[in-house]
């Protein structure tokens, strides 16, 4: 392991422990790590964005004379009017361009991928490898049909929900509850994975950095707690 790698690993371990110190309680070490992270993310974003503009627009403009890049760059510069109160309205020009382009492009594909294709897929769903007469195929198809119809019924608000519609809406509500439960379970799994990832880094990579950083962190934490208690005792 080279010295830069060692320093990088130690730094990563220190920052991980600084963030996890929040589990004890809110503290300055956690705040410092949080602010440094935000600063680094913003700086990284700014540098990569600038590099992209340089490669894609400025270089062709300056070296190949592709003058048409001037227009999008000028429109992009209008974003800076966000900081000028008097001419703030100019800032709306690039914003509307970005929003308009995004919505236009999104809508075109959305109708197909999230509406038509979803309906088609729902009608022909279940296990694609199973024969149409197999039990799991039939069971899945029936479950999907009942739950989809029930959920759609739940969102019918133009007619008073009574009779058959009321019962269908109940099915929809239960369907959504099951979906929310599943989503919550997945969220728990994801959060555990993140903790496991960090713990694995501390314990395994590359030489078990936790074995010397964690005791030091515990000592620092204990010292901080003792100092705070002694301060509290003096005040009292």
């Amino acid at each position: 392991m080279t010295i830069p790698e060692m320093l990088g690993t130690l730094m990563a371990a220190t920052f991980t422990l600084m963030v996890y110190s929040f589990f004890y309680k809110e503290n300055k070490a956690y705040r410092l790590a949080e602010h440094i992270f935000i600063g680094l993310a913003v700086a990284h974003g700014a540098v990569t964005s600038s590099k992209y503009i340089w490669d894609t627009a400025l270089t062709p403009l300056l070296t190949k004379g592709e003058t048409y890049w001037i227009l999008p760059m000028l429109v992009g510069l209008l974003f800076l009017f966000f900081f000028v109160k008097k001419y703030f309205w100019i800032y709306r020009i690039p914003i509307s361009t970005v929003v308009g382009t995004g919505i236009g492009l999104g809508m075109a594909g959305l109708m197909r991928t999230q509406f038509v294709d979803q309906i088609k897929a729902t009608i022909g769903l279940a296990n694609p490898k199973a024969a149409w007469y197999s039990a799991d195929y039939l069971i899945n198809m029936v479950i999907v049909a009942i739950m989809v119809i029930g959920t759609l019924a739940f969102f019918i608000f133009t007619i008073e929900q009574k009779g058959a519609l009321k019962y269908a809406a109940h099915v929809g509500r239960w369907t959504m509850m099951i979906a929310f439960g599943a989503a919550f379970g997945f969220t728990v799994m994801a959060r555990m994975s993140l903790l496991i990832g960090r713990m694995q880094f501390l314990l395994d990579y590359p030489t078990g950095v936790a074995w010397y950083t964690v005791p030091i962190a515990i000592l620092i934490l204990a010292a901080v707690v003792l100092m705070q208690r002694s301060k509290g005792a003096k005040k009292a």
Partner: protein
Amino acid sequence: MSLFERLEKVDVRAIYLLLFLVISLPLIKPIGMPITTSQMTIAYYDVVEKLKAGDYVVVSSDFSPASMAEQYPATKGTLAHLVAKGAKIVGLGFWADSVPLLENAMKATFGSTKDNPKYGTDFVLLGWVPNGEVGMAALGKDVQTTCPKDYYGTAIGAIPMMKDIKSARDFKLLITIASGTPGVPEWLRQWQAAYGTTTITAVTAVSAPATRIYFPAQVGGVIEGLAGAAEYEVLLTRYGYKGTLVPPMDAQSLSHLLVIAFIVLGNIAFAVRKYGKGK
């Protein structure tokens, strides 16, 4: 104060400590609990299996370092699988801070990146493509203009494997390692729907429920979080791939058992408090 009342008022830090222990112990001394493969992970594997040598594949790294624990093993496994199949890998990312992670995964797979003799002929890293969905649309329409240079500043025209690549139609497969927006829906709208590009994805567990709806009609295969990546590693063992996710899956399973135990205990305590008073 009864036991259940104490349980309801337990210091949350005691729970954190228990969780740390339950996660750390299997990582230090793995149990080796069995890992079964899901239909979606098998489908992901099968789609890559069907590739022929020389097929072009886009591997888009669309996640942040925050979800590295889940997505990095899937990225490494995917790259190893693509190499085993002889596919030509075009790496890029729509999340600026994900590209260094993809570069790391490429280094782990190939040994090095820009200095590697295979760089530019078997794999390339185009770097970050901005503007989310609009960027995906632009990339699909014209790869050369959208990415005029690779991650290291080499003109795309000077990269041998990219000379004949013009649009999304030149790619056999799109793999997005995604954890949010832009991610799977955007790729489907701009590539799968527009060009019919076969799409598979590795998503974080949080995104999994929202991604399942696209399987199998629109997304050919899905790796769901750390568990999916572990399943994929099991499938890749036939290529001699050595995974790292058996101990983490032990930790995952035990931590889930702990959460279940807390939920059950919490509910019992709540029920005793609520219904016990009436007696």
